[in-house]
């Protein structure tokens, strides 16, 4: 979910949205009390540790959606086409909804009416049986699970799905499981340089399939997060047959979910129809109420918002999986009696932060001064107001277990426009009033607008701000350089699943510092590094979360490598004849598993 392309995509989305905002001079909407209560409830549900479900919770069929009816086709307006259909190449959040409809993996999430998630078995009979303190995990496949061509899914297919992710043509998908099995970084590729395509396999001591139904993962160290990692779209099942066409599989995959691909014209359209070989009795999370989906691409947010607001003709049965309400139209949507009843909203997993290059800003008082000076509220306003984001007090998103509502050591919630006096005082103590601060920002419209506000806030605090514009297409590459030449820069990071283990280690582990790595602040704190190692070994996820929380406090308060700026949010609109709408706290968009068309 947190790939460079995701972040670029998001930057582009926000940039376009901000472009519209600039044209209209609209400052976006403010959340009503009811909406605020709803998002608070969402945050409360999402920041809990996701429990592992039992075998009975993993059995199908999924709980019926009240009032659901069968039939009809949903029209879907998407801005971006899908670059990948090979699940092993899927990492960006935009494909998460599609993956939910067409692919299945060993595990998945179910969600109750209050938004509480449970991690359950999907193709597997349960969320996994752990042994050796987390070093061994065993999964057993359900009876009756099949690919779209009617071929039964076996443990050989699961092994193949994992092993093909070692092949050189897979470069964009998640790497958690491969690294846990065969080595960190890219060294895991050496264990199976060509993937399984030349007849080689991982040793049974690493990945074993004793029979057609059983698959056993053996790790060198405890991996308590395995069930969550396996729920990622990237670990969906791929057949161990000639139908895995390697590179070409990205164009024509074999599906296993309730829908299959009837046609796909890249950049134009996609049609999904029912997969008749999907058995609802095996699936605890998905439904197949509608006959299919007619997806068209190239719809900017303003276009999809206007069509869905108008609610005419086929737009009554239309929605977008990932397009938000265009920020320039938020007020209009909220004041429209019909449209305002057809909204779904929730948090997105990203926390935007102003990274401070600790190789250059070594004095914590200076970093604290920058944090106090940040005009977060102004940035949120540029992002589209309270429906587009929320001022952040810490570096863990409301979508991550361990998030603490109200955690605000730098008073960002109390003084969202910054505290220049306090910042100035700290700078004075450090003897650095008037110090030069090189602030890099991407050359997108929204970042340029934010740069004005941020530079102004820092200048008021006593910094001599030197703005440096950087090409947005190479933004993360340039910021990822160890010697990047900048003092402060805004980056966004979100979790891969709702656990701090996918946030803190990649962002703040000093051992990962290298060109291209995501420790953008270059934090080299021995306590943090030691704690990461220690916490990752804790077999109990709840205990882990408590420890991540403590480490999060330490990082924010004692090290302060990045000023928290805002948590991202999404607001989506749908047609009046769409039923079963709710926010999905796994994909962080509307839930595609429960949709139906009202007659």
């Amino acid at each position, binding site marked *: 979910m947190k790939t460079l392309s995701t972040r670029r995509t998001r930057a582009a989305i926000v940039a376009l949205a901000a472009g519209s905002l600039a044209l209209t001079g609209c400052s976006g909407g403010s959340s009503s009390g009811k909406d605020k209560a709803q998002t608070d409830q969402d945050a409360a549900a999402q920041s809990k540790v996701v429990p592992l479900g039992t075998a009975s919770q993993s059995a199908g069929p999924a709980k019926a959606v009240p009032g659901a009816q069968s039939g009809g086709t949903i029209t879907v307006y998407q801005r971006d086409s899908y670059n990948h259909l090979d699940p092993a190449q899927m*990492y960006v959040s935009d494909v998460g909804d599609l993956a939910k409809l067409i692919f299945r993996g060993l595990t998945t999430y179910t969600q109750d009416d209050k938004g509480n998630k449970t991690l359950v078995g999907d193709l597997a009979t349960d969320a996994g049986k752990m042994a050796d303190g987390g070093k061994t995990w065993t999964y057993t496949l359900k009876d009756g699970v099949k690919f779209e061509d009617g071929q039964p899914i076996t443990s050989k297919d699961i092994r193949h799905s994992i092993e093909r992710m070692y092949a050189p043509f897979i470069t964009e998908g998640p790497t958690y499981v491969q690294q846990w099995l065969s080595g960190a970084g890219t060294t895991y590729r050496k264990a199976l340089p060509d993937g399984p395509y030349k007849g080689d396999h991982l040793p049974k001591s690493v990945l074993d399939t004793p029979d057609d139904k059983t698959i056993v993962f053996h790790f060198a160290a405890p991996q308590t997060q395995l069930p969550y990692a396996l729920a990622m779209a990237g670990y969906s099942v791929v057949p161990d047959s000639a139908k895995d066409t390697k590179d070409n599989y990205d164009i024509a995959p074999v599906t296993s979910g309730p829908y299959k691909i009837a046609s796909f014209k890249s*950049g134009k359209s996609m049609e999904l129809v029912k997969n008749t070989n999907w058995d609802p009795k095996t699936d605890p999370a998905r439904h197949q109420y509608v006959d299919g989906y007619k997806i068209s691409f190239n719809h900017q947010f303003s276009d999809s918002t206007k069509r869905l607001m108008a609610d005419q003709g086929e737009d009554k049965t239309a929605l977008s999986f990932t397009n938000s309400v265009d920020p320039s139209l938020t007020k209009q949507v909220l004041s429209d009696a019909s449209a305002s009843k057809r909204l779904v909203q929730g948090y997105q997993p990203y926390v935007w932060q102003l990274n401070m290059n600790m190789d250059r800003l070594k004095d914590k008082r200076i970093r604290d001064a920058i944090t106090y000076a940040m005009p977060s509220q102004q940035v949120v306003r540029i992002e589209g107001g309270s429906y587009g984001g929320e001022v952040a007090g810490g570096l863990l998103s409301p979508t991550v277990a361990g998030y603490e509502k109200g955690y605000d050591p730098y008073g960002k919630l109390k003084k969202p426009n910054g505290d220049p006096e306090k910042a100035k005082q700290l700078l004075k103590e450090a003897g650095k009033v008037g110090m030069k601060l090189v602030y890099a920002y991407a050359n997108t419209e929204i970042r340029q607008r934010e740069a004005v506000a941020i530079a102004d806030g820092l200048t008021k605090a006593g910094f001599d701000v030197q703005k440096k514009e950087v090409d947005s297409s190479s933004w993360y590459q340039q910021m990822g350089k160890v010697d990047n030449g900048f003092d402060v820069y805004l980056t966004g990071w979100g979790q891969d699943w709702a656990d701090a283990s996918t946030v803190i280690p990649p962002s703040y582990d000093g051992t990962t510092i290298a060109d*291209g790595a995501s420790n953008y602040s270059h934090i080299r704190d021995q306590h943090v590094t030691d704690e990461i190692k220690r916490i990752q070994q804790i077999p109990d996820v709840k205990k882990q979360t408590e420890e991540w929380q403590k480490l999060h406090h330490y990082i924010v308060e004692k090290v302060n490598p990045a000023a928290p700026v805002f948590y991202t949010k999404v607001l989506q609109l749908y047609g009046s004849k769409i039923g079963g709408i709710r926010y999905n706290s796994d994909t962080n968009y509307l839930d595609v598993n429960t949709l139906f068309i009202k007659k």
Partner: protein
Amino acid sequence: MLPFLLRRTIGAVVILVLLSAFTFFVFFSVGDPALMACGKNCTADNVALIHKNLGLDQPVPVQYWHFLVGIFAGRDFTLGHCSAPCFGYSFATKQDVWSTMMDRLPLTASLAFGGVVAFLAIGLGTGLLAAWKRGSLLDKTVTGISMVLSSVQIYILGPVVLGIFVYSGIMAAPQYVNLTSNPFGWFMGLLIPWLVMATIFTAQYTRMARSTMIEQLQEEHVRTAKAKGMPARYVFLRYAWRGSLIPIVTILGVDLGSLFGGAMITEFTFQLAGIGRLAVDSVVTLDLPMVMGVMVFSAALILFFNIIVDAAYAFIDPRVRLS
């Protein structure tokens, strides 16, 4: 005529080769396509692996040579054999570049064809009428309107028209429907873009037709024809009109090439997926094979229409010799 066409075609091929070489070599100064396919683990190792997968680990001149060979003789990729004319496979989508362009072409061609018919019919008609009635209220009205319309842009007029006709539910949103399977659907699906394009382009052709016609009416041969007592309508249409066509045809040739090569703003405004949209998307995603394919294809169309226009001069004006 044949030597002329042969000479111009050879010239066009040389231009295309130079243009493609320039684009190919300049492309690498813009950014690294591997970074767009790098995923979360964008380490040096992963970037190197992607370079190898995409063939970017070879020297740029070698890559360009392979590109040229592919156009004329086809190429083999890990994705399969790509027959000539082969522009390769998209870095971003793994789709065959040529097939993708051919898939987008019917929309772009339909958009261009309908737009040209509309703006030529309206633009030339009103321009000639204004010239015929020079100085009249009609002339002033036509001139005034064309002045206003020439300052309007598609990205402004388009959303306004969409707001009035589409988002209100009066008409369906613009879309491309296959002409042969549903001619009425094809017509209705593109009617709004055609009319908006016509509104913008008409102004230019109205003004051009009017001014060149007025110039022609002051030419000696036209005045001679009038002095010989020929009917005004005959002189207007037979002598003046023919002479005024050359600058109009010249502009039309450029416009046709541009429109067939992709009306980017029109396609973006009306959410249509044609060649123009493809061009922009491929540049944004640093999709080298698609950038090269669209660039060469669009440039070839512009050159083609220019050759046609040059050849048409001889038919329009016998004084022009194709030497």
